[in-house]
């Protein structure tokens, strides 16, 4: 019904010639709808409008899990938008293989993306068979532990510097009536927490061995067993945080009801909104204070193949403007993420962001799970870990066996 309705609107749009010839309308779909995110998108729109075209905002509320199916069905259903957000990696892989996405290699060569985009793996994730299909716009990393200084003061213990100290401090927090670890009920949060533990406690090699090489022996081995042990600690520490959304969990940390939260750098936006200051009100530990590796994930724009020539030209203009140094700074400061260009100036960044930039400059980055694993495997992992973290009876050994089984089935 809906598609027919849409088709009718579309047909109406074709019949009625649209106003000015130069300004081309380009619909851009994305799922950035929270306050800070919307402000950041407005920067992108402003930059694109300055090129003489018009950004038609197609925000879809309800996070990526809700938005992606809508975007994909529009592209596969023959009603493509001008450009759309996806996360870096394999989410749009099949759309590209089916020839539904536009090749951006010319724009990328002309704009020297290969030289300016850092780390290079971001562009690699956009490259399929030697051709570039997307424009990365920001870097988000998952590997952060956010701690409430007030909560640790109430409990009478030092603010921990590492994951081990944090685990050791958990009983004191509990005694003071504070939930040691805030963890929302959404499945992706549990799976993300485990992946952070894996890379931060196990190191880069172990992480790549299981997620990139899909090494079965390692997956069932004792090194991974240690990670599951840590996940078991985390499971006990998270007991009692009865919230669903990640920002509600972050709010527990902000209000000092929880000791800390393992969450990506987007959580920082919440602390800023609550007027909290890095270092005095809250502390951040990239890589859980253990192995300082950041797995780069983030957002990129893909451009569906369009027949309309004016629109195709506008797509080029948009791709260029997204990676413009000025746009990159304006956008990422509002979004709280890191820019994809190494050659821009970010003096306005706060302490935590600077820690992230340092790690990025050192090159201690690895590919994120979205790049390494297909959506199918990610979903199965989410099912497993949401069950594991909510369960009191599921044993560590059982969980590891099932996890290894999922890894073994990955392609």
């Amino acid at each position, binding site marked *: 019904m809906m598609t027919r309705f849409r088709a009718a609107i579309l047909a109406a749009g074709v019949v009625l010639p649209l106003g000015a010839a130069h300004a081309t309308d380009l619909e851009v779909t994305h799922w950035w709808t929270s306050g800070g995110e919307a402000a950041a998108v407005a920067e992108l729109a402003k930059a694109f409008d300055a090129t003489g075209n018009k950004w038609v905002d197609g925000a879809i509320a309800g996070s990526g899990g809700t938005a992606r199916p809508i975007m994909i069905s529009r592209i596969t259903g023959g009603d493509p938008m001008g450009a759309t957000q996806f996360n870096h990696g394999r989410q749009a892989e099949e759309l590209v293989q089916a020839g539904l996405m536009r090749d951006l290699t010319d724009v990328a060569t002309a704009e020297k993306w290969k030289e300016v985009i850092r780390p290079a793996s971001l562009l690699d994730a956009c490259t399929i068979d030697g051709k570039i299909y997307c424009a990365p716009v920001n870097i988000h990393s998952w590997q952060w532990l956010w701690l409430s200084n007030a909560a640790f003061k109430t409990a009478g213990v030092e603010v921990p510097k590492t994951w081990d100290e944090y685990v050791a401090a958990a009983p004191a927090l509990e005694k003071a009536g504070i939930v040691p670890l805030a963890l929302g009920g959404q499945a992706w949060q549990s799976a993300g927490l485990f992946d952070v533990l894996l890379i931060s406690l196990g190191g880069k090699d172990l992480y790549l061995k299981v997620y990139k090489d899909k090494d079965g022996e390692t997956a069932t081995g004792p090194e991974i067993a240690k990670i599951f042990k840590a996940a078991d600690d985390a499971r006990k520490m998270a007991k009692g945080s009865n919230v669903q959304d990640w920002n509600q969990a972050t709010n527990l940390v902000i209000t000092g009801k929880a000791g800390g939260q393992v969450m990506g750098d987007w959580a920082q936006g919440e602390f800023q909104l609550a007027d909290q200051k890095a270092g005095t009100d809250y502390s951040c530990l990239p890589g859980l204070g253990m192995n300082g590796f950041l797995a780069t994930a983030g957002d990129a724009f893909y451009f569906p193949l369009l027949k309309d020539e004016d629109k195709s030209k506008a797509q080029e203009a948009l791709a260029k403007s997204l990676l413009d140094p000025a746009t990159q700074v304006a956008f990422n400061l509002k979004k709280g993420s890191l820019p994809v260009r190494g050659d821009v100036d970010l003096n306005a960044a706060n302490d935590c962001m600077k820690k992230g930039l340092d790690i990025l400059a050192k090159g201690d980055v690895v590919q994120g799970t979205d790049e390494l694993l297909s959506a*199918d495997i990610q979903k199965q992992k989410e099912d497993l870990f949401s069950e594991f973290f909510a369960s009191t009876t599921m044993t560590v050994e059982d969980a590891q066996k099932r996890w290894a089984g999922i890894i073994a089935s990955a392609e």
Partner: protein
Amino acid sequence: MTVPATTAAPPARRSTRPNQYFRNMSAKIASIPMILTAVVIFAGGTLWTVLYSFTNSRLLPRMSFVGLDQYERLWAAPRWTVSIVNLGIYGIFSLIFSLVIGFLLAALMDQKIRFENTFRTIFLYPFALSFIVTGLVWQWILNPEFGIQSVIRSLGWSSFRFDPLYDPALVMYGILIAALWQGTGLVMCLMLAGLRGIDGEIWKASRIDGIPAWKTYLFIVIPMMRPVFITTLVIIASGIVKVYDLVVAQTSGGPGIASEVPAKYVYDYMFQAQNLGQGFAASTMMLLAVAIIIIPWAYLEFGGRKRG
């Protein structure tokens, strides 16, 4: 949905008249769009889905057959097993309670009480809300931080504990409460309509015979209301099988995977996991389960009777 198909076959004994198929042409032409929709969209789409459930289609459908692999994976997935058990719990309790409560309310409403209209409106009102709204409302009511638990605690019972949505063993019952709150009003209305259809003479006769009211209900009125019960049953049962939005709004399947349901598995695997094959296999299993229940029942209900 399969019901009209089994009963629509015209009786053969009239075939002596040549214009049999051309009688009532305008009505037949008018129903062509619906017939096409039913055949192409429902039947065609169903066959297509079943066919592609034997392939390894990912984000886009593709014809590379893998036999029963998708089904093997499906039945090996703990989340699917949990979903089936949950649907069983939800289905049985929701069927029993909505019928019993709905009938009791209707019987009480039928006692010629004052303000009947007002009560009827109140009971039916929740049905005007979507499952999403219902789910959100009950998520808040059952939330231990600001729902029933915190109200009772603030009254002084500080150890009172009522948080079904955060207890894996109880979460399905938390969802059931919301579903019953939303759905019994409709059942009540259907039952009330059925009760009003019972001839007043029957009541008089049973009163003269000195039969107690509860016995009259149980042994005379309810058997007479058979068609109403069947309609109600179909409405409730189809609501049970497709339950999805209520769960999404109330718990999104949590805690962990404790309140997952089959329809949610289908959606999640088709669109979030970008694995059409797996989603199709799951939806085919749902279809099969419905068919196993519906076909023998439809046969018993409609097959024996001749339509004239």
